[in-house]
């Protein structure tokens, strides 16, 4: 393989992985940024998205529909959880959020095991995306190209929403001074509920998009570790940071696994450690 084609193929691989990581990490970053809640259940919600996607695809015969339904259901679960549990804890210290979201992780894991069973489940590729394109004679799955496009479009829409709309402005203002926003007559409970639901839905999008490449399995919930690494590197609570964090983590994993497979994990955690030392708030975090 020529150097240029190799770099191109590996870059596309990294971008498709970054896209999945973006859906996972951005939800966590939004929830932390706006609500100061460390959502330990993010990996479990990502897994739940994959399982609901499996069932939707099985019942409707359409993975495309699964990509819509799974985030809606998981977002709704997130909304109910915020209203039922988190809303009563905002005056408590942050440990309360850790405990209650860890509890949600356990509940989701056991319910998933009871409903779907332990064996992993196959989620097919969406119709029309099961082929490959040849780039310098090397096959690149169409689905990977779709993932890159999906990540790019979703990140642009969310960024525009946060930066260019009035609601986005209120959300950003809530992250900076929620009491002031409340005093100006905005229902911050509504904003918190909406943001938590959106964050959970984004995790579910990540899960249902990942499922055709990894199968839906109970082990998916361990993805929460990747989500934390992205948020720590990119910046606590920064949406742009989550985008950069996803790109950095994906590039380190993809190129690291190729050139230094024995050290790729070490590089990633060393990078995280370095960021924590130099910029404790993350590359684009506000607490640096």
């Amino acid at each position, binding site marked *: 393989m020529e150097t240029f084609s190799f770099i191109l193929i590996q870059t596309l691989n990294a971008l498709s992985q970054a896209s999945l990581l973006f859906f996972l990490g951005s939800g966590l970053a939004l929830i932390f940024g706006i609500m100061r809640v460390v959502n330990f259940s993010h990996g479990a919600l990502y897994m739940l998205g994959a399982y609901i996607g499996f069932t939707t695809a099985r019942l409707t015969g359409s993975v495309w529909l699964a990509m819509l339904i799974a985030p809606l259901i998981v977002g709704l679960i997130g909304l109910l959880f915020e209203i039922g549990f988190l809303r009563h804890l905002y005056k408590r210290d942050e440990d309360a959020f850790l405990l209650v979201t860890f509890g949600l992780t356990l509940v989701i894991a056991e319910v998933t095991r009871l409903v779907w069973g332990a064996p992993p489940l196959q989620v097919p590729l969406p119709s029309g995306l099961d082929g490959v394109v040849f780039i310098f004679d090397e096959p690149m799955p169409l*689905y990977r190209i779709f993932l890159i496009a999906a990540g790019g479009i979703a990140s642009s829409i969310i960024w525009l929403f946060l930066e260019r709309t009035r609601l986005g402005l209120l959300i950003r203002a809530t992250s900076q001074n929620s009491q002031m926003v409340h005093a100006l007559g905005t229902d911050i409970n509504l904003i918190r509920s909406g943001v938590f639901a959106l964050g959970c839905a984004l995790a579910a999008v990540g899960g249902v998009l990942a499922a055709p*490449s*990894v199968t839906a399995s109970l082990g998916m919930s361990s993805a929460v570790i990747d989500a934390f690494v992205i948020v720590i590197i990119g910046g606590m609570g920064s949406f742009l940071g989550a985008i950069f964090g996803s790109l950095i983590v994906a590039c380190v994993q993809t190129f690291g696994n190729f050139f230094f497979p024995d050290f790729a994990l070490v590089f990633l955690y060393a990078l995280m450690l370095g960021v924590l030392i130099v910029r404790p708030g993350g590359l684009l975090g506000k607490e640096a």
Partner: protein
Amino acid sequence: MTTSSNGRRTLLRGAGLAAIAASTPALMRQAMAAEPIKIGIPCALTGSLAVVAEQTKRTATMWAKQVNAAGGINGRPIELIIEDTGGNPATCVRKVQQMVERDGCRIFTGITFSSETLAVMPRLGEWDSIYVACGNGDASMTAEAFVPNFFRGNPSGPTEARLLSLYIKDSGLKKFYAIGMDYSWGHSTVAAFEEEMKRNNIEFVGKVFAPTGTRDFSSYITKIRQSGADGLMMVQSGDDANAFMTQAAQYRLGDKVKMFTTLIELSTIKAVGEASKGVIGTMRYMSTYEYPENKKFVEQFTREIKDTPDWNDGEQWKALQFIGAAIKKANSIKSADLVAALNDMELDTVKGPAKFRACDHQSLEEGFVVQVDKVNGALLPVLVKKYPWDQITPACRKKNFDA
């Protein structure tokens, strides 16, 4: 009123207990009255091999139910203590220690990862306990890491590597690459396979180890495509095997290399579907194996669990068959008595006749090479070739097969 209410409740409770007692067979009642034999199963019910641990759990539960219904062993019922280790060696050691100290458990089986078993093994003597493995393939367990209270009921990784290399020898393939999971089982199996390839004058062009729980294999697949290999050996299990095989199919890797695996799992075939078609590998246990003990097991399993037993169901059942036979023979649950009973014990198992070799406590049994193919429209492992144990099992206390 309160007294009357309490009295009625007591009466009802008594009547309920009497009804249960009357409906329980006499042998079972006798067994329940005796002190239970506790068997500890610290397995990775969460994490990338959760599906394997669930097989251990369901099969062990079915075995205990059957034994207890028949009056227990030597009149004593079986009590299983099943706990999640998350696949973490330190957690596994802690769980086993808890079971020893808190529950008085001295018999263990069903640990999922070799790395967990290797952490537990040095403590078995101190805990006066035995451990019978059903799915731990690391080579060193019956070599330099061997301890007298450890028994391995499944074939080791190098045994499977040897088994597959005997088959590959005549395949006409010239260059091989290997991908393994980055822990002891993956490393020792790939090392044994590399040695076998060199012995067969097949070029071994490279190897790579992916961390357990890897989700994106695209760069590994690029590496394999670039290696120039025409054959690929996979040493993977659970979620990692599923993700790799799914992505390998998406990248059309099968068009470039012939794919082999040291471990074919029914759960993987179901999870990845067409992506597994044509893959050749070894299978530790086959539900379709024609043998009377297996036929009985599969019938019972299908009836009670309503599924087809996967490799670890069969291996776990076999390990428990050995444990049960040893307790019966020794009429004791002391580790020294059980070790003496298991040494050189021969048993008719679900995999045919098997024997625990006294010198290293390795089970000696036939090896199966299978290919995933469509049978009546369903993807299934189809037996391609069988090899006798003496052609595939490393010599006593040796890691690899020495021809």
